[in-house]
């Protein structure tokens, strides 16, 4: 089992929607397990909406999203030529327990890191490259892995 697909979407909320729909289609086609599926749908929403909000400074741009699946893991790579920005260096949210003290700042990327087994950032050839990984062997029940 191995599959790979790249979609290029505009850096807009419509583009975010197109990328998540492409991921859902990829997941359907390749029988991606349920847990991996929703974890990546949430993570993609966080990562892509963040690029749309902050990355392009009002300019138009595209985001390339690559899904790669093998027996052991699912990897999603997000690449853009927007402003150089390593989201992993953003301040993490406070963990104050009271509601009043809680602010939502930095919540998205912290959530992505909690959702995934691995998140890696690289600035490569003038592009932001963010790679998200989730191990599949813990689930072991895809339609392919049974036999």
């Amino acid at each position: 089992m191995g599959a790979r697909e790249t979609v290029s979407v505009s850096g807009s909320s419509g583009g975010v929607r197109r990328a998540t729909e492409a991921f859902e289609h990829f997941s359907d086609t390749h029988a991606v397990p349920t847990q991996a599926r929703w974890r990546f749908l949430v993570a993609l929403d966080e990562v892509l909406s963040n690029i749309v909000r902050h990355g392009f400074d009002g300019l138009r741009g595209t985001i390339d999203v690559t899904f790669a699946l093998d027996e052991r893991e699912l990897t999603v790579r997000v690449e853009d030529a927007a402003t150089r920005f390593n989201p992993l260096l953003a301040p993490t949210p406070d963990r104050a327990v009271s509601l009043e003290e809680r602010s939502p700042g930095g919540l998205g990327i912290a959530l992505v890191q909690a959702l995934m087994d691995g998140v890696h950032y690289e600035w490569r050839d003038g592009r932001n490259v963010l790679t998200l990984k989730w191990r599949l062997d813990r689930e072991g029940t895809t339609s392919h892995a049974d036999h």
Partner: protein
Amino acid sequence: MQITEQRDRGVVVVAPVGRIDSTTSAALEGHVQALVRAGERRIVVDFAGTDYISSAGLRVMLVLAKGLRGGPGGLVFCAMTEPVRQVFDLAGFLPLFVIEPSRDAAIARLVGP
């Protein structure tokens, strides 16, 4: 995402059906903020039909909870699906909210037995 709304014993039950993410959260925020502006003080959010929630949706819930603080009534969540419960958990949000397994239990929490 679709939003259904029902009233039961003076409690408004809001049920977002589908995904709560960066592209749908504004509609949900508009919906619940309109309820608060209209003077509703007892609100249940029923997640039974919610596929998943991202931080954009968590923000809506945080703002709603703060808006209902300091008065009678309050906010109770119920029927969280596994993806919703796990995202609340991973974000450290579970201790911040009152969460019941069922809609009935959530309403009872706000109106008393």
